[in-house]
């Protein structure tokens, strides 16, 4: 019986440690993605096979029209009529009614789209956040609803593929309606494509001979030899999509969400 005291003490200590960790304030609307390893889908000859991803916070849902309205209210230079052309093409916020009125085509709780990389980056920065890297995004998005290794969940893979095969609806549905993944994150698949911080490092040819090699490597049959999982069509599409973007593009089904360092 002499041992009980220390045991209880130890248990209390452990419990308090656990509580202290759990009590770490999580930023509102964000979930923790713990340390992990991202297995790049596409490997050039000299690429790292496994990229360690440090733990980070990720927005649970994409940035909405409502969120973005608050941003443009506070930052006049990002309003549709005032944005500099170098930072956003002429489709910028094209589904909004007016500078400060998203209107009925861009409901407050639907994800913001028609935003350029520059605008997404500035908005994230204004919120005290940043855009996730491609490695972070892909790592978070590889989790299925019940397990972190979604690649081993046939049902999850099928659902993702189904979404990729459907065109985006003219009016985007609200955020947060798709099932949360293992980390509690919604809409990584099934709503909009999302900007990442380093979209322009997504794909270049291993030998740097020119830009056109990109698409050849990706889309020609032989190019598939560089792919980790040739049946992972959604990853092919995401990589192809990212490498086709320019930072000023504003597209109807391309939005963003923010990340934050721990």
């Amino acid at each position, binding site marked *: 019986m002499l041992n009980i005291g220390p045991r209880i003490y130890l248990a209390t200590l452990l419990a308090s440690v656990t509580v202290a960790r759990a009590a770490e304030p999580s930023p509102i609307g964000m979930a923790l993605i713990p340390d992990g390893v991202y297995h790049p889908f596409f490997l050039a000859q000299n690429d790292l096979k496994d990229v360690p991803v440090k733990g980070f916070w990720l927005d649970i849902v994409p940035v909405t029209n409502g969120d973005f309205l608050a941003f443009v209210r506070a930052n006049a230079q990002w309003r549709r009529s*005032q944005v*500099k052309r*170098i930072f956003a093409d002429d489709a910028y916020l094209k589904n909004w009614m007016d500078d400060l009125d998203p209107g009925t085509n861009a409901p407050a709780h639907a994800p913001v789209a028609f935003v350029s990389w520059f605008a997404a980056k500035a908005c994230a920065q204004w*919120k005290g956040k940043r855009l996730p890297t491609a490695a972070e995004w892909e790592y978070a998005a590889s989790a299925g609803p019940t397990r972190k290794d979604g690649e081993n969940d046939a049902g999850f893979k099928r659902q993702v593929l189904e979404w990729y095969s459907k065109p985006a609806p003219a009016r985007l549905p609200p955020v947060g309606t798709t099932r949360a993944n293992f980390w509690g994150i919604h809409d990584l698949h099934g709503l909009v494509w999302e900007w990442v911080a380093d979209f*322009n490092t997504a794909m270049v040819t291993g030998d*740097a001979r020119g*830009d056109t090699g990109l698409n050849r490597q990706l889309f020609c049959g032989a190019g598939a030899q560089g792919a980790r999982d040739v049946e992972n069509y959604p990853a092919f599409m995401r990589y192809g999509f990212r490498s086709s973007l*320019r930072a000023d593009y504003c597209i*109807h089904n391309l939005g963003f969400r923010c990340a934050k360092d721990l």
Partner: protein
Amino acid sequence: MMPRTNILGAALALLIAGAGNAAEARPASCCAPTALSATTNFTDKSLYQSDSKWMTDTGKRIKLGELKGKVQVVAMFFANCQYACPIIVNDMKRIEAALSADQRANIGFTLVSFDTKRDTPAALAAYRLAHALPANHWTLLHGEPDDLLELAALLGAQFKEDANGQFAHSNVITVLNAQGEIVYQQLGLNQGIMETVRILRQLAAK
């Protein structure tokens, strides 16, 4: 680069007006200043709108806007490059050599390194010396990763570091007019410099 229209496919589906539930916007969570300032003297399409910060090989901190006033020939590179960068830099030197002294007085050459770790201002100074890049026409810039991503985005260039510390990258030489707007891009290696030279002569004559 794949034409945008291929990707968009369904983009033409126009937005249908309908009953919306445009609710009140949620208030801002916080208010960090944005990177890009609203009041600048630069044109709408000027790269000099960028707020990114750089350091020259002489250790001077600058913003891109300080390059305003001269036509600029810009390329991204890294000093340890074994393959493409020497060709790019050599192309730029050939371009410089093809210009008259008068034209050169109005044209700057700017190299920006991808390699934030190794290409310190001192390493760039050594590169300048090794490649005999004249101090009065050539600017060599070191930057932070975020700023490099942004500049690459502005130039439409892609780059990626591989496991060996080499960078795969687009091969682009960009001509900016005195306002910092892209007027021409020489894409790929060994494309010949004459079109670039022709455009520079025109711009320098203005």
